[in-house]
């Protein structure tokens, strides 16, 4: 095991009604302020800032013309944007580590904000649906009506169904169990709105095989966290959350030739690296915060990490396991499916709360190791889930 050198010492979230009436930039600045306060720091202590953005897979989203560190008034020595699709937290931490190692920064504020719900209202007023996702240079599928994430992500579910006999009801079991978690999270969009498997099956098809409830939410708001070094983390007022392992994988090289990446994510190398650094095995993971843009991505990761065998994810989730009271608590916030969509910052924020013991009614007792995954990325048309990041956090 590598001795942890870095820790998350502050967390800030702007979500739900709290995010109304501000831009994503404003939400980023406010989440940053909250994270700095949570860390017991002052703005002048923060000497670097990173913005996390879905610059690729989520569509064409140029950076704001004005940036949150200016708005917040940080005396930052560096500021830039990182991210690839929904892989944000892991890439942000890896980047910040370099600046901490070099002594350029003592505390790095890492923030990601979105205004996707607001944007979806705007596109609806234009007679379109979902987030506009079609003007990327070289984007292949646009004239064929491949216009939104479900247009190509659903190939993954369709192919898994074909190869392994997985059913829509089994995918629905994931949505139902995540909803049960959301009903224990007062911050979640779907708090107080329980879902049955019949609700899932009766929800309309958007892109068959995906029903509406196989598809994640879009949100407004922001998540911010402060990363620092082990020696400084010891002085933190909140219990530090240690970065114990970080790994990455890519399936793009298998896309057109091997045709294998339609039923798995790029977990193999990411898991080996992250679990190796942390010196842990799968059974040591107390809470799994798995990137869940769609239900099948959760199923794939349950198989790829080894909670069940490849192809057996359907029966596995149908038995339970991942909801409240299950032996593999997955997406305890309600996830992107039922809580809020801040990319993998949804996963990271929940892991921090769980490891601090701040997760209220949904707290997994004695949670000491959390797995946070992210994925996404640009591909010409199908699949999309190219990068996979694996982050092991420890109490």
């Amino acid at each position, binding site marked *: 095991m590598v001795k942890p050198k870095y820790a998350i010492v502050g967390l800030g979230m702007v979500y739900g009604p709290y995010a109304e009436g501000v831009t994503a930039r404003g939400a980023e600045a406010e989440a940053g302020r909250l994270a700095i306060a949570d860390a017991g720091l002052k703005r002048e202590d923060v000497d670097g800032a990173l913005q996390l953005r879905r610059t690729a897979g989520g569509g064409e989203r140029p950076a704001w013309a004005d940036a949150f560190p200016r708005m917040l008034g940080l005396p930052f020595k560096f500021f830039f944007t990182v991210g690839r699709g929904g892989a944000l937290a892991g890439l942000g931490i890896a980047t910040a580590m370099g600046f901490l190692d070099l002594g350029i920064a003592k505390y790095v504020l890492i923030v990601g904000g979105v205004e996707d719900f607001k944007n979806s209202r705007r596109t609806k007023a234009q007679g*379109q649906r*979902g987030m506009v996702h079609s*003007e990327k240079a070289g984007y292949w599928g646009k004239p064929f009506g491949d*216009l939104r994430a479900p247009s190509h992500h659903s*190939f993954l579910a369709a192919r898994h169904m074909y190869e392994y006999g997985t059913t829509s009801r089994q995918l629905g079991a994931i949505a139902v169990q995540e909803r049960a978690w959301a009903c224990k999270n007062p911050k979640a969009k779907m708090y107080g709105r329980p879902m049955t498997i019949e609700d899932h099956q009766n929800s*309309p098809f*958007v892109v068959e095989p995906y029903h509406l409830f196989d598809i994640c939410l879009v949100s407004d708001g922001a998540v911010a966290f402060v990363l620092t070094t082990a020696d400084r983390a010891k002085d933190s007022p909140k219990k530090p959350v240690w970065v114990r392992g970080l790994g990455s994988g890519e399936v793009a090289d298998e896309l057109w030739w091997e045709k294998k990446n339609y039923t798995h994510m790029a977990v193999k190398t990411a898991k080996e690296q992250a679990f190796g650094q942390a010196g842990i095995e799968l059974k040591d993971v107390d809470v799994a915060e798995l990137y869940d843009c769609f239900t099948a991505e959760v199923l794939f990761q349950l198989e790829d990490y080894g909670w069940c065998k490849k192809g057996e994810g359907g029966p596995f989730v149908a038995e339970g396991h991942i909801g409240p009271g299950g032996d593999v608590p997955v997406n305890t916030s309600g996830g992107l499916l039922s809580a809020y969509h801040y990319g993998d910052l949804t996963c990271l924020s929940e892991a921090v709360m769980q490891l601090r013991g701040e997760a209220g009614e949904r707290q997994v007792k004695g949670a000491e190791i959390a797995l946070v995954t992210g994925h996404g990325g640009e591909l010409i048309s*199908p699949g999309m889930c190219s990068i996979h990041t694996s982050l092991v956090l420890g109490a």
Partner: protein
Amino acid sequence: MSATEVAKGNVMTTYAKPLPNVDDDSRPQWEGFKQHKFLLFRCTKCGAWYWPKAFCRNHENAPMFADLEWTEASGKGKIFAFNIHHMAFHPGFQPDIPYVYALVELDEGPLFGTNIVGIDPHQITVGMPVEVAYDDITPEWTLPKFKPVAK
């Protein structure tokens, strides 16, 4: 994207859907579609086929994609995966609902994203043989859609 005004004979019609998003890497292929030629990128040294455009995995192709060229391919393949769109994300697709977007495993090897036409979506199966069916959507643009191979 705004609707595109198209002159068809003496009648101005409107093509209401988004047009292809073409760049310098893909332009030759789109020019081929316009002539109803199904071009893929091929290594002249070993005959390996690529799509989208790529360096050959078996050769260096220096400098700048040497020994690779756009080459007419069969335009035939099999359904690898497909989905059925029940909602139009763009109003231009509303009349087509439900429509099929599929990955076709071309006989040459690459996977190709396209619409499947000429069949009830729920009759489509993985492995079904399909072939290119050109759709001249405007005088400037032709879409390489696919249809089941006639028995």
